[in-house]
């Protein structure tokens, strides 16, 4: 029997209570991540992509007014499949860090300012694994080395504020990886960093992933990064998944007009300008989730809109090819017209 998925999310919905009414940040989202698979969760601000990451980690309850429905199952290192959404906080704490770990955009707020890097990574290791201080220390140094920290031994005795943004993020990743999680959730881990530093970290992350075979849920708005790192993409818009599939296929022939619009709106170095064409912008703005548009949430911005159809009926997420799904009532016609 083939190994089951490391993560399974079924019908996940998350709402936040706001003075203006319930904000439905995530609506009926389902997906799986296979062992060792790198999946990108792509979306713009307000698409719900970060909320999904927090929901998997069980970190939503801490925010006021969040309520979640649906189920999340994780197959940890032991192989046992656990329903995270049914676990008590205590048990969840054991899962976090050891089976699933998360890194965020701003590492400074996740690091403790009064302990050295070495202390923090070693503690993370010893919380989840029975090893001696000495072993934890050498594992920590090994992790920093793997992430391209130039002088890992010197780095161990530093405090977070003494490090650059790029170094802090490497330390965060080293902590997250310290316990060999089966799944790493990386929420915009390089967005705050400069291009050359981002390239370094993505490269090291990719190497570590190949070495350890852990699965990654890579949350980002950057389509370039998706193309660089992910096997499969889940494209989100206004709280819903609107397209899924292998990255190659989705980028080569996007089926959802939103995905196509995003890809077309990006200038490509050495190509767009030489072809003398304008950027194909998507008109309008991302909708408010307090009051999402009826029918397809993307219809007010879609150039393939058919009034009476797209604004009336919410489209299902349907299979459009093997391993690919799209949420658009008109995808067949649009695909035919394009070919």
């Amino acid at each position, binding site marked *: 029997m083939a190994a089951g998925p490391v993560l399974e999310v079924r019908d996940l919905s998350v709402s936040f209570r706001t003075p203006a009414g319930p904000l439905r940040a995530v609506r009926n989202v389902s997906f799986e991540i296979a062992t060792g698979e790198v999946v990108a969760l792509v979306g713009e601000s307000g698409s719900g992509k970060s909320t999904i990451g927090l929901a998997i980690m069980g970190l939503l309850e801490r925010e006021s007014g969040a309520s979640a429905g649906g189920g999340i199952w994780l197959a940890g290192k032991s192989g046992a499949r656990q329903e995270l959404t049914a676990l008590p906080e205590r048990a969840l704490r054991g899962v976090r860090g050891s089976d699933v770990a998360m890194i965020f955009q701003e590492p400074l707020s996740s690091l403790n300012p009064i302990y050295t890097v070495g202390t923090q990574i070693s503690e993370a290791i010893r919380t989840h694994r029975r090893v001696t201080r000495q072993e934890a220390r050498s594992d920590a140094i090994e992790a920093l080395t793997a992430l391209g920290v130039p002088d890992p031994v010197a780095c161990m005795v530093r405090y977070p504020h003494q490090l650059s943004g790029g170094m802090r993020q490497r330390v965060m990743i080293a902590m997250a990886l310290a316990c060999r999680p089966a799944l790493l959730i990386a929420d915009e881990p390089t967005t705050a960093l400069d291009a050359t530093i981002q390239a370094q970290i993505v490269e090291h992350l990719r190497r570590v992933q190949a070495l350890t075979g852990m699965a990654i849920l890579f949350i980002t708005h950057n389509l370039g990064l998706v193309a660089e790192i992910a096997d499969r993409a889940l494209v989100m818009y206004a709280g819903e998944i609107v397209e899924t599939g292998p990255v190659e296929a989705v980028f080569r022939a996007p089926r959802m007009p939103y995905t196509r619009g995003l890809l077309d709106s990006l200038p490509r170095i050495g190509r767009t*300008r030489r072809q003398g064409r304008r950027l194909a912008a998507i008109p309008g703005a991302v909708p408010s989730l307090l009051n999402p548009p009826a029918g397809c949430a993307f219809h007010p911005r879609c150039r393939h809109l058919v009034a009476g159809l797209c604004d009336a009926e919410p489209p299902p997420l349907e299979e459009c090819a093997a391993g690919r799904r799209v949420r658009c009532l008109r995808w067949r016609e649009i695909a035919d017209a394009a070919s």
Partner: protein
Amino acid sequence: MTAPAEPLLAVANLRKWFEIRRGVIPRVVGAVRAVDDVSFTVKSREVLGLAGESGSGKSTIGRSVLRLIEPTAGRIMFGGEDVRALGPKALRRFRRKAQIVFQDPFAALDPKMTVAEIVAEPLQVQGLCRDPRARRDRVVSLLESVGISAEFLARKPDQMSGGQRQRVVIARALAVDPLFVVADEPVSALDVSVQAQIVNLLEDLKERLGLAMLFISHDIAVMEYLSDRIAVIYLGRLMEVGPSEELCRNPKHPYTEALLSAVPDPDPSRRGKRVLLAGDIPSPANPPSGCVFRTRCPYVIAECAKIVPPLRAVAPDRYVACLRDDVL
């Protein structure tokens, strides 16, 4: 051959050092060399892109040129006038010709003012369009030119999306009919799907109004698209200057090469090959001797620590500050 026209803006040996003061009785203990010996020109109707990472000094250059901050040294000539010598009155006149668009449309607009008031403010400050009706017409036409309809006149910034706010910021900058605009990361705070709208708008305005622009960004793909020429800056110093397409296709400075190669390409079939830099960007308070890029340069040689490489011409209209002419 006719003599080339005077550039609209000519910056020579611009320097901005921020002093670091410490102690109970503060004394200067060092300086952050934000901008060091930077020279460039912007021609009329030309867009010059200023590409660099954080701490490169690109925003400091933009602000110094408009004298929103006072440079430490250097010469800034705009339309034949010495910008650094302008008195208060002349400075106000200068601001009618040179404007700025900031990155964050959420911070750049007063939340208590309506859109109409925001766009009319520079007209009032400059004493233009004194007649209320003429002023209102001007505001409406300005907003129209950036794609905002008159129904937004009475709205406040918090009732608008990020893209709409950035359009209002642009309309405000254009209110005084400037010749030159510094656009400091004008699309970085916007959603991906909205960025292209604003990039296209800037392109249209440049064509329609004949604007010259200093386009500051860390996104070199957007920059290549919008700029005629690109100046690449690292730790306060110019590394390379050249026409956008050529510079991006065939970078001549090791840093430009690395910067271009670091941009993730949204084409999965091109995955892979990269020039990866080692290490971190040094602090501008303590920049490396010689070439400031040498600590991360894959082609470094011993001389790089000793000599500050001058910007030398390597081809018509292309300049590179690198001692090595044998690698790229």
